[in-house]
């Protein structure tokens, strides 16, 4: 029973982190129909920042990693994607693949192929006792962090003028511009918010592993994309729920499958995804299919 609660909490935290990652992709997708594979390299950049600056203190290292993630996200938009406004979603996705590989090679040249390590957030690497059940501190922190970010994002989107403008642009880009919403401003905003979420994902993942290599963000972004597709990437709630589901499932499979099988857990997840794509190609949670940006 105790072990079940432990793995349940871990799975919720695993779901929360992939939910955030999928949301960070969905935010940008909603506005410019870009499923950004290079989101993984934004996560990696934030993770490297944490590793290299952790000795300066968390109160410097964490804000710095957020700044780096937001800056890289905006840089991608200004240098690459803003030049591709009339491209189809498929072309954008392929461009983001290219960007992802390019950045991985850059990280390799800068920081070598071996992983860099630092005791990032080592204070969180302990268990706490909750009513006789040992629970990982990091899982609890992850759940609280994801919950607060979600709450803040929801509040921002629903209550602020900029948040409403972002929602309007995601729902109907052409009409949004016709009523005076600045395209470049909402697009920039979506990339910036997406960067903040990527930094949060990077923090939790770096604490978990303590080691960062050039392809650190790749498995995260693959699973997040899978989740976003399952949930329906053109709706924020869909992307979030899909990401959560995938994170939850991979974590549960990891704790409950025999060790030999654990190694293949991603194969199981992909198996599930293929089933979903075969039987519910428009995602599990949405009713209609979104239209492509013209």
């Amino acid at each position, binding site marked *: 029973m105790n072990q079940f609660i432990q793995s349940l909490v871990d799975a919720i935290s695993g779901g929360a982190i992939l939910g955030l990652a999928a949301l960070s992709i969905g935010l940008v997708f909603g506005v410019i129909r870009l499923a950004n594979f290079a989101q993984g390299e934004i996560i990696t950049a934030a993770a490297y920042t944490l590793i290299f600056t952790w000795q300066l203190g968390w109160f410097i290292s964490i804000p710095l990693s957020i700044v780096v993630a937001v800056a890289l996200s905006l840089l991608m938009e200004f240098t690459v994607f803003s030049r591709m406004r009339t491209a189809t979603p498929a072309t954008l996705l392929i461009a983001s693949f290219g960007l992802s590989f390019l950045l991985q090679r850059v990280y390799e040249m800068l920081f070598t192929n071996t992983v860099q390590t630092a005791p990032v957030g080592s204070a969180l690497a302990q268990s706490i006792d909750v009513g006789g059940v040992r629970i990982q501190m990091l899982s609890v922190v992850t759940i609280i962090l994801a919950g607060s970010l979600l709450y803040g994002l929801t509040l921002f989107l629903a209550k602020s003028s900029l948040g409403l403008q972002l929602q309007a642009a995601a729902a109907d880009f052409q009409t949004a511009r016709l*009523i005076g919403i600045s395209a470049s401003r909402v697009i920039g905003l979506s990339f910036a918010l997406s960067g903040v979420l990527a930094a949060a994902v990077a923090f939790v993942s770096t604490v978990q592993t303590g080691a960062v290599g050039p392809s650190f963000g790749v498995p995260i972004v693959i699973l997040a994309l899978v989740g976003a597709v399952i949930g329906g990437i053109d709706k924020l709630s869909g992307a979030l729920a899909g990401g959560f589901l995938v994170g939850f499932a991979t974590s549960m499979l990891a704790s409950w499958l025999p060790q030999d099988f654990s190694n293949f857990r991603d194969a199981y997840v992909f198996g599930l995804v293929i089933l979903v794509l075969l039987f519910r190609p428009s995602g599990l949670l949405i009713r209609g299919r979104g239209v492509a940006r013209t």
Partner: protein
Amino acid sequence: MPTHEIGLQVENLCVSYQGVPAVRGVDLEVKAGEAIGLIGPNGAGKSSTLLGIMGATARTGTVRINGIDVAGLPPEKVVRQGVALVPEGRHIFSELSVLNNLKLGLVGRREKTGIPEAFAEVFTLFPILEEFQGRKAGLLSGGQQQQLAIARSLMANPDIILLDEPSLGLSPTAVDTVFEALDVVRKAGKAVLIVEQRAEFTIAFSDKTFVLHDGLITLTLGPSDANNVDVLTEAYFG
């Protein structure tokens, strides 16, 4: 020398899609306090004319908003010169509340004062929107959604308001509500340009109505032509 008269002037407006012309040299003018109709069969280029004015599609020719040439400006900047479009098919944000749709209309507003008054004005014009302000816009009836689309455009306090087929798909009473409101808007001194398929209705309502055919204005009608069957037949089939 730009003239500083309030209103819209369009000269030799041309719009084409991948080299195929849709609007082929339209001239028109709408002054403050005036309603101008633009009618014509499906595919005549009515929507393209409005989108061309807004800068939402590639175009040539001159468009002056309150005397200022808006050549090359993107729609979000054209709006800030004082013109608002109520698009064909309404295009309200159906997942957002009525109130949030109206707040979004404020984005294109030039002055940041008078916002409470702006809400009060649209709620007087369309009381149903006040009653349903917390409701998801997608849950409104077609007529109510059209009222919301017009109200959203009024939140920007435009001098010129362009409407693309506001009566499309509405019941007769809903059409009456919409046109009564447009009459108030015209009398309040705004310049109103109405694109419609309903010829008789539009001709009777407007101070002047242009007939568009294959991207060209082929006829100009006055309110007294509304019941003239020959003129209408000529307009649509001539």
